[in-house]
């Protein structure tokens, strides 16, 4: 059976003001696979991720043209379709940033945040989802006794796993990760890599990275950013 295409990008061009960062990008990402996007810094890898969940719209001066489709519930949907709410898109195509960004609130509230956004009020259900997300992010055993503590007191690696747990809490179809290990030490990075391998299959992963060994260990498919576009390497 052929792999199912989860995300399809056609003729994507991206500008910051007058500077073109990406030009006529075409790419596909397969369901349940981990695709790595590699390349030197400052060439538009992170920008590319923001085009997939329309987060670029929140960045002053950014402008994207082209088409991005995401397959959700069996249907391909154009992300820029006005009838497709951007809030729903971002819940289903979640994102983890390079620098861990816990919100200034407790560990529990951080992970439960996407549920609150969706309007879920049932505390018992929320507690269940939070526990499950923290377990999937390999963080439950370390924080289960301190869920009410300020999340910003966790170590860098724990904060990044917290952010992954928070992204997982909304049960996303796609998880975008922007250099998720670059601000961490080798041990913390190793844990995150292991975690990403367990997420493969259940979730479509797009990981920006510039560590080639990491990419070789993890990725099913690799794109490289070069000459303002994305080229399939393997």
């Amino acid at each position: 059976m052929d792999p199912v295409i989860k995300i399809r990008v056609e003729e994507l061009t991206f500008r910051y003001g007058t500077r073109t960062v990406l030009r006529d990008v075409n790419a596909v990402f397969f369901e349940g696979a981990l695709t790595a996007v590699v390349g030197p810094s400052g060439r538009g890898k992170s920008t590319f991720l923001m085009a997939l969940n329309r987060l670029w719209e929140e960045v002053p001066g950014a402008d994207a043209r082209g088409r991005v489709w995401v397959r959700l519930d069996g249907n391909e949907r154009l992300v820029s379709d006005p009838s497709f709410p951007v809030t729903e898109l971002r819940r289903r195509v979640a994102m983890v940033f390079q620098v861990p960004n816990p919100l200034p609130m407790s560990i529990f509230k951080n992970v439960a945040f996407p549920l609150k956004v969706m309007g879920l009020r049932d505390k018992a259900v929320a507690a269940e989802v939070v526990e499950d997300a923290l377990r999937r992010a390999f963080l439950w055993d370390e924080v289960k006794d301190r869920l009410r503590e300020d999340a910003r007191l966790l170590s860098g690696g724990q904060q990044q796993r917290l952010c992954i747990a928070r992204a997982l809490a909304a049960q996303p179809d796609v998880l975008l990760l922007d250099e998720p290990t670059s601000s961490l030490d080798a041990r913390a990075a190793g844990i995150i890599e292991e975690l990403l391998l367990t997420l493969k299959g259940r979730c479509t992963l797009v990981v920006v990275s510039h560590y080639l060994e990491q990419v070789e260990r993890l990725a099913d498919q690799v794109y490289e950013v070069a000459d303002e576009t994305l080229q399939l390497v393997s």
Partner: protein
Amino acid sequence: MKRGCWERAVRCGCYAAGFWVVSGAVAVVGFAVRQGAPHVTPKLLFGGVSAREALFGGAPVFDGLWPAVVGTFYLVAGAVALAAPLGLATGIYLAEFSRGRLKEVLTVFFDVLAGVPSVVVGLFGFSVSLLLHKMVSPRLGPCLLVAAFSLMILVLPYVIRATQSALEGVPQEVRITALSLGADPVQNLAWVLIPHSFRGIASGLLLAVGRCAEDTAVILLTGVVVTAGVPRSLLDPFEALPFYIYYVSTQYASPEELERGFGAALILLGVSVSLFAVAYAVRRAVGHWALYRA
């Protein structure tokens, strides 16, 4: 060597400036305490009536400062209650929704409003009360409500600009965190941006509280009087401490009367400090609550 000299000189200059400011403040407060403390007695506050009767029995106080203390509290509460919702909403609009030319014009406009002398604001309030008197009812005139309304205009720019700059100071990565998790702009504002900038917003409100408690020029023209008793409604004239101090210091007929003025100054200082303490406590508690409530 030369560099070292420069550094030392700059550091000494900064220390001297800091010391000068602190000693000035200490001198002013010390002077008020020295002159006023011996005269702050239950008699100064309540006159011939006992404190219990004045506080709980509703006995009118004729020759004490109690009505002025109550009047000042009402005035501050009223003005801040009017200014807070309007100022917060306007600040949020300027920071989050207004763009381009209109935003520039409005920002300059509120800066100008912040620079309007308070006596001009007082004159505006006076005109409003005249208008109400003529158009609505001859019973209306300068009163607590008009004074609070005028003070609101005076402090509105502080609240607006503090809210605006606190929100605009939220870093971009915090700003997009909740949005990347599927929050809509209103949720982002309510759950991330406002809690994140809460300290800055609260500082604007604190400034407003202080300004309302001390201003004399505005209330002078909008309803303060020498003797009114504890105000019974928003449409009554009222007494206030800053006006009493101004009145006594310009019109005193005997040294005893001036001493009462110093006592009033110390009481006003106490009222301001307690308002600040309450505001600080609220700021801390709300900050903690926003952070840890499940």
